[in-house]
């Protein structure tokens, strides 16, 4: 985790980002071992951060999906916007999350909102690019014949282009889901909690690191499966093609 170099800086953000884990080493004679006993004893400490993490993943994904799709639809309508939007969402993705939190410190302060803003920004490039690609991959003749049968621009978008782009859009959403779960691990630097807090409470102690990480992997997997299930429900023709 290269973000470690930020830790001294982050001390300024607040005083609670290193939680109290003093009892941990006492109870784990192996000293920095996995300590299953410790995990069993302290598992309840992970429940609240886990649900925080769930919200830190789902909310940015939902907002990010709406915003990125909106941007893509605008860019689809006004082609001139495409390079501008792509550059913008691409640039957002390159800002390190810790730096992002520091930048926003003066605007939104610390807390949940700041974390959601940053995590939403990161979803943009993944979702936007896939919506755009999906729309562009709709064959020209399909749009042509839709126009020729008397569908309006808007009807073509909603009844032909967007449905046909769905598989690609959902693919972007899946990548964004696992990516957001991962990046939300840094949300505690903004004071928004989440499983990251449990990891950084004692980065050297393996029990908490492993437990928090496994919970994040579980969350990422479940989210992906949910998106996949929704995708299957919305794109029945995809299954027909393979059968």
């Amino acid at each position, binding site marked *: 985790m290269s973000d470690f170099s930020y830790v001294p800086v982050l001390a300024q953000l607040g005083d609670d980002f290193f939680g109290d884990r003093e009892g941990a080493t006492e109870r784990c004679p192996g000293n920095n071992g996995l300590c299953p006993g410790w995990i069993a004893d302290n598992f309840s400490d992970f429940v609240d951060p886990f649900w925080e993490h769930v919200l830190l993943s789902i909310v940015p994904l939902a907002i990010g999906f709406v915003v990125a799709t909106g941007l893509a639809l605008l860019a689809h309508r006004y082609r001139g916007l495409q390079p501008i939007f792509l550059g913008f969402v691409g640039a957002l993705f390159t800002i390190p999350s810790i730096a992002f939190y520091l930048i926003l410190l003066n605007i939104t302060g610390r807390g949940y909102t700041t974390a959601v803003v940053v995590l939403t920004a990161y979803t943009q490039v993944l979702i936007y690019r896939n919506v755009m690609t999906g729309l562009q991959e709709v*064959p020209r003749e399909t749009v*042509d*014949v839709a126009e020729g049968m008397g569908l309006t621009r808007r009807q073509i978008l909603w009844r032909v282009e967007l449905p*046909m782009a769905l598989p690609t859009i959902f693919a972007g959403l899946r990548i964004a889901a696992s990516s957001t779960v991962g990046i939300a691990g840094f949300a505690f630097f903004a004071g928004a909690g989440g499983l990251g807090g449990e990891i950084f409470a004692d980065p050297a102690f393996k029990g908490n690191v492993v437990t928090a990480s496994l919970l994040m992997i579980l969350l990422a997997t479940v989210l992906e499966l949910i998106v996949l299930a929704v995708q299957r429900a919305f794109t029945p*023709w995809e299954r027909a093609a393979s059968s």
Partner: protein
Amino acid sequence: MSTEATAQAGSREDSARSAVAAPLELREVVKHYPGAAKPAVDHLSLEVPAGEICVLVGPSGCGKTTAMRMVNRMIDITDGDILIGGNSVRDRKPADLRREIGYVIQQIGLFPHKTIGENIATVPHLLGWDKQRTRARVEELLNIIGLPGDFRDRYPSQLSGGQRQRVGVARALAADPPLMLMDEPFGAIDPINRERLQNEFLRLQAELRKTIVFVTHDIDEAIKMGDRIAILKEGGILAQYAPPAELLMYPAEPFVEDFVGSDRALKRLALQRVRDIDLWKAPLVRIGEPVSDVKAKLADADLEIPLVVDEHGRPKGWLSERGLQGERVREDFRSPAEPIVELDDILRDALSDLLSADSQYGPVVDADGCVAGVLSIEALSHALSVPAQHVPSATELAAAED
């Protein structure tokens, strides 16, 4: 489309499924793209009577597709006007206009995310038909194009190329449009299936009698499908507009002559069937018949060799001289009755049969196998000199077949 403007097409009372078609007129239509040195379509004037197929044909860059796409305003008209059933397309909202015009393109462009039923129902859906009416129409169209009813719930990816093409046609026909635009509709189909789909479509058209604008680059397809053919040359200039037979017999200019090819006389053979030309009358005799009767028949026939038929009138063979020696006709053949040509064969196939059998003539039989006359190379040659206006169009041929 107002009801006064739509003409009842075709005189055939039995075309139960649909009978509405509108005449189409292009008046001095020009398409000039901004910045282009020359127009893409240059003062094009055409009249297509209701219920006829007008084929736009020409080399690439001749503006045939552009001309077609101006009809439903997929491309804006620079100058001139297009009238459907007497009404200018310029006065219509493009989307409304297009819903009244069937549209089929080479790639077919079925919506992959919609079922076959939903694809066919596209325009009825746009027009706000109720569920019951739409469902009934989809069922009717699947039946017309010869696909089982359970195809309604399949997706395009589950169909073969030929089936998809049929669905494309059904989708264009869904709201019973008075006019259809077809841009190389069979272009992406392999040759064997293309032939079959063309024939199928002609049979369908013989019944539906839609007004159709059909774009192709293939002159053979144009001759086969067109009631009238408009040959365009580069720059969107109309070189000739005529029925296929006239085009083949009297090409208006060297460009047309080149475009239809040096085998244009042979191409005419594909336009007619054996039943369309004057067949020779053969002296038909039966074994055991009095020879004196045969003499009378010979005097009345176009051929001096008696053709022996069985009790049902089916050809058995050409009688030899010795068969006539005696009181009654004896079974003694000089040669078998080959090749046997059918009334419904096109002249090209019939000629091919005669040539491969190395024969000057052959008996022609009807659907029951009974002799209807004799086809000779001489008669064929005579048929090619018949004035073009007596040669039927593809749609008429298909109608006659039913």
